[in-house]
């Protein structure tokens, strides 16, 4: 598989179809880092194993990366979902990006265009893993007071470094609400109020968009389980709006059901 992926990267670069291949390479220690391959010969530096989980789609909307020319990106299923969502949000257009797809069983996939990638990834059911479901349900079973204390406790270490935002390929706004100080929507100091406001806001702005790649959690230096919030919203949207729309909060049904509006 590795050889096939490297060969594909080499072909794409030498034929001039793309000018950069964004993939995974060895970092320091046992870590994996994102690699930006510009020359066909460098394609042999690409690696692919179970450590390669970062969502590389995060680079597609960055200006510095766009300046490099047309990229190809090594994409597992969550990355392909992200690209699909970015297309829906008009951040990535057909022809702007080539995808070196990696199937769940680590086969290299060939996609002539993004449309065929979107069709492939749409056919794979989007749902939480059993562990993720169990974690959400565990919290749901607590009393409101217990949940409040749980979140105050896990968020108490948050210093709002915004690594969760930076690592998220769908948090691409150039002006984030958190940087707005007229009005100051989110309190700056890292006390309970500001932390709570930030995490609610982050989850709400990803509602119906999050692809559950888990990069926010992996980026968090304090290992705050902040993706529980987005997973909860994914569960709710599936339950209440009947499956994942492309962007559930961008759509509505006149007969959406609720039981709390009088």
């Amino acid at each position: 598989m590795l050889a096939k992926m490297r060969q594909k990267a080499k072909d794409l670069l030498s034929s001039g179809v793309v000018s950069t291949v964004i993939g995974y390479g060895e970092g320091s220690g046992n870590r994996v880092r994102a690699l930006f391959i510009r020359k066909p010969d460098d394609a042999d530096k690409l690696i692919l194993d179970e450590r390669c989980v970062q969502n590389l789609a995060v680079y597609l909307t960055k200006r510095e990366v766009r300046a490099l020319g047309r990229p190809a990106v090594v994409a597992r299923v969550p990355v392909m979902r992200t690209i699909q969502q970015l297309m829906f949000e008009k951040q990535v257009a057909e022809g702007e990006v080539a995808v070196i797809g990696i199937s769940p069983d680590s086969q290299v996939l060939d996609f002539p265009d993004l449309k065929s990638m979107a069709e492939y990834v749409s056919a794979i059911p989007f749902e939480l893993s059993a562990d993720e479901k169990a974690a959400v349900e565990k919290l749901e079973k607590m009393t409101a007071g217990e949940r409040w204390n749980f979140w105050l406790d896990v968020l108490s270490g948050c210093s709002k470094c915004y690594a969760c935002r930076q690592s998220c390929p769908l948090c691409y706004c150039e002006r984030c609400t958190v940087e707005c100080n007229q009005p100051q929507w989110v309190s700056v100091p890292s006390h309970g109020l500001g932390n709570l406001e930030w995490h609610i806001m982050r989850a709400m702005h990803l509602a119906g968009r999050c692809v559950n790649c888990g990069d926010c959690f992996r980026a968090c230096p304090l290992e705050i389980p902040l993706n529980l919030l987005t997973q909860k919203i994914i569960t709710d949207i599936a339950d209440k709006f009947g499956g994942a729309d492309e962007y559930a909060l961008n759509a509505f049904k006149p007969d959406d059901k609720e039981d709390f509006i009088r």
Partner: protein
Amino acid sequence: MSEFEPKIIAFVCNWCTYAGADLTGTSRIKYASNVRIVRLPCTGRIDFMLLMKAFSRGADGVIVSGCHPNDCHYTSGNFHARRRWIVFKSLLDFMGIDVRRIHFAWVSAAEGAKWAEVVNSVVNDVRALGPYDGYKNLAPIAADWRIQDAG
């Protein structure tokens, strides 16, 4: 110490509930004076951050109200708002925030009596719950001036 009087902030849409609240007044219906009304163009404009701000600025309860489904002045603002509220309310509950303090209603421009009833029942509910100290105490330094400032 005198009995606790809750501070309620109501976010209402310009076309239905604000006009409805106006009708309550012109119909000379008396209702609890604990509510401070904030008029916005449409329920679709009621950002969830406004509700968060109300609580952090010392509100004990919040009312969000707009046109009934299919009556939106902008055709679909309230449908979008409804989806957002469904997700938002569930998220707040998941975080342990007291969702008994957040009330949603559809009040049309003709429902002056319903507005009075909504406000009265919310004020009674929140009065029974007491002040929302849990949220106010999140930012201990600012808590004092906030309570005084909110008048």
